[in-house]
């Protein structure tokens, strides 16, 4: 479970460990089944050690991670803001981007549409580079094939981003 995702989930307000887990589950839908619950708590512990979150134990409750109340530190907030503005693209792992949008919308930190647009622009530029490189290769070169693969995946990702845009536009219209 990516650290930044967990941080972003806490951006709206501090929450218990189990609340965090529930929110993640809900955002991932059926894919949430595949989520390892333990991973969430491990990540939370790491984040606490790194000083990005604080953990408070409610009085009179057992010392268990799911019962602790976690909150972002100023460094944690900075980390979240930087992550939201990032436009790097992971290879697989659509869930991270998806959760980024969910968290941004829930916490009101950023407009999901502008995140999507920024990412689209970046992908288009990369598509252009990859395509140019592919066309510059001599005919029949093996590298063309690889570049072609990159192009096609980017094309597919761009289509998904269009779908994201449509979805988040509708949600904006509805709200």
């Amino acid at each position, binding site marked *: 479970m990516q650290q930044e995702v967990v941080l972003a989930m806490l951006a709206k307000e501090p929450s218990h460990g189990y609340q965090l887990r529930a929110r993640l589950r809900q955002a991932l839908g059926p894919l949430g089944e595949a989520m390892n619950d333990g991973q969430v708590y491990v990540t939370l512990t790491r984040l606490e050690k790194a000083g990005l979150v604080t953990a408070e134990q409610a009085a009179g409750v057992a010392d268990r991670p799911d019962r602790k109340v976690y909150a972002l530190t100023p460094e944690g907030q900075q980390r979240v803001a930087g992550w939201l503005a990032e436009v790097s693209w992971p*290879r697989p792992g659509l869930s991270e981007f998806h959760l980024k949008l969910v968290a941004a919308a829930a916490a009101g930190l950023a407009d999901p549409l502008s995140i999507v647009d920024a990412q689209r622009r970046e992908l288009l530029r990369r598509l252009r580079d990859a395509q140019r490189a592919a066309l510059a290769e001599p005919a029949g070169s093996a590298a063309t094939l690889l570049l072609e693969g990159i192009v096609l995946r980017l094309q597919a990702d761009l289509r998904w981003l269009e779908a994201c845009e449509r979805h988040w536009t509708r949600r904006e219209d509805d709200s």
Partner: protein
Amino acid sequence: MSTSSPPMLRAQGLSRTYGRDAALVRAVDGVDLEVAAGETVAVMGPSGCGKSTLLHLLGGLDRPTAGEIWLSAQRTDQLSERALARLRRDGIGFVFQAFHLMDELTAVENVELPGLLAGHPPRAARRRAAELLDQVGLADRARHLPSALSGGQRQRVAIARALSNQPAVVLADEPTGNLDSEATLDVLRLFESLHTAGQTLVIVTHDARIAATADRLISMRDGVFIDETRLTGGTAGDLGSLAGLEG
């Protein structure tokens, strides 16, 4: 964005509406556009957003309900039919999604059509057509009828035809809409080479790959421009990571 030289193509407050009252459709609603010489601009958007209508307006195939269009500093939206025809012949090359070649003419005869219409001597028109077909890689299919050509080949013939009279601007409406990925690649290569040669291009497309050949990408929805992106300039990552290489 604007350079010292005036824009090759300019539209201001361009609108096209259909119907009346309750059935009023604003296909294009107050669009402003400037295309510099040698620039490639791509317009993307969902179906029905008006991008094809916009292109038809720019190409003189349809008359705007409001707004102005300027091509090479000449106002085009109020020209007579005859003047518009001359414009389409010499100033603008149009590439359609459905190719629209004349079925009964061979490839080279289709390409030399604008030349003959412009009154060029037949031999000169034929020579130019042969050159263009060579440029698009179809020299060996010059005498074939369109029915004997694949979709990609037909579209390349159509592009060659659009270039016939050395137009100031080439307008392409979903040029790869009916093509498979192989044919799309051929057309892509063509557009890249045209871009390198300094041809001004305005392309309307669904296909991100075609859009990626552009210098500027405009997003359109419900008849208006909603976004504009410069695609030139560096990227935030490298191709290696995209390919799965740890870098």
